[in-house]
């Protein structure tokens, strides 16, 4: 099973579901998607508007890999469960977000070899543009660095709170 999560933004992110629907590699895969506010009907993809966090984590744990919009919450839910992630940033030009900031974190995490990210705009003018298919092949056949959480961060924030309480 492949789990897809589009985040909680009000803006529709239909483009990603269409890409998945039309990807020949996924023709025989079971696909479950948390679509949030995106309206989409499909025979191929099982859509659920919102999952509570237990259900969400269950799908993450039991899937082969996660296809996520470029939001921090979605990407890290997968990474912290040691799942491979294909992230697709929401783009402003398609009205999918207020700006293009999702590209930043996707690029960064891809450069650190934690995830694969797919932005059709990157290779639109190349001879062989990247597709969902090439990205999934890459995701399936490569190793990615596990992401480890920085456990000391909370106490650093707590020190800052203590400082301010005293000042």
């Amino acid at each position, binding site marked *: 099973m492949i789990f897809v999560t589009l985040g909680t*933004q009000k803006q529709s992110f239909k483009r990603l579901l269409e890409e998945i629907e039309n990807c020949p590699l996924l023709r025989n895969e079971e696909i479950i998607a948390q679509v949030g506010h995106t309206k989409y009907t499909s025979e191929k993809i099982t859509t659920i508007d919102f999952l509570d966090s237990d259900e969400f984590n269950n799908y993450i744990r039991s899937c082969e890999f996660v296809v996520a919009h470029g939001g921090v919450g979605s990407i890290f839910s997968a990474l912290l469960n040691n799942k491979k992630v294909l992230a697709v940033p929401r783009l402003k030009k398609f009205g999918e977000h207020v700006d293009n900031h999702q590209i930043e974190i996707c690029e960064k995490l891809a450069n650190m070899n934690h995830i694969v990210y797919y932005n059709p705009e990157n290779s639109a003018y190349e001879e062989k543009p990247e597709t969902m298919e090439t990205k999934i092949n890459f995701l399936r056949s490569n190793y990615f660095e596990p992401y480890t959480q920085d456990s000391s961060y*909370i106490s650093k924030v707590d020190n800052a709170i203590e400082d301010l309480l005293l000042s």
Partner: protein
Amino acid sequence: MNKVMFVCSSGGHLTELLKLQVLFRKYNYLLVTEETSLTKKLNEDYKISYMKYGSREYIFQYIFVFIYNLIKSIILMITFNPKVVVTTGAHTGGITCFIAKLFFKKVIYIESMAKVKSLSVTGKVMYLIADKFYVQWEELVEKYPKAEYLGRLI
């Protein structure tokens, strides 16, 4: 017990803020976030107060949401009266922290992990007024010298 308010928008900002929830046991806390279908059940687990959900995309509607959240922030500053406010941002967190500064509260701003190369709109305002300003990627400190890098929340 010292009063500390934790405030942010829903979605990824809340995922980041809730990483700090062990601190909820240490302080007399209040969690403030937007009411959405995903956050409405959180009041079973947390001491929570809700703001209205807004996005800059729907600008006309957002003006009303903005005013509602502004008034609610003022009420919370008076009724809860925190000493310190911690936020992981976006607009809802920003509005409350702006009000907090008007009430002479201390503000800790943590820029979202999503921001790697530049600050968010809220971050740019908070950079000027927050008492402590943290970013989660080192390269941002070069651009914004007053920002501190402590590592990453997630």
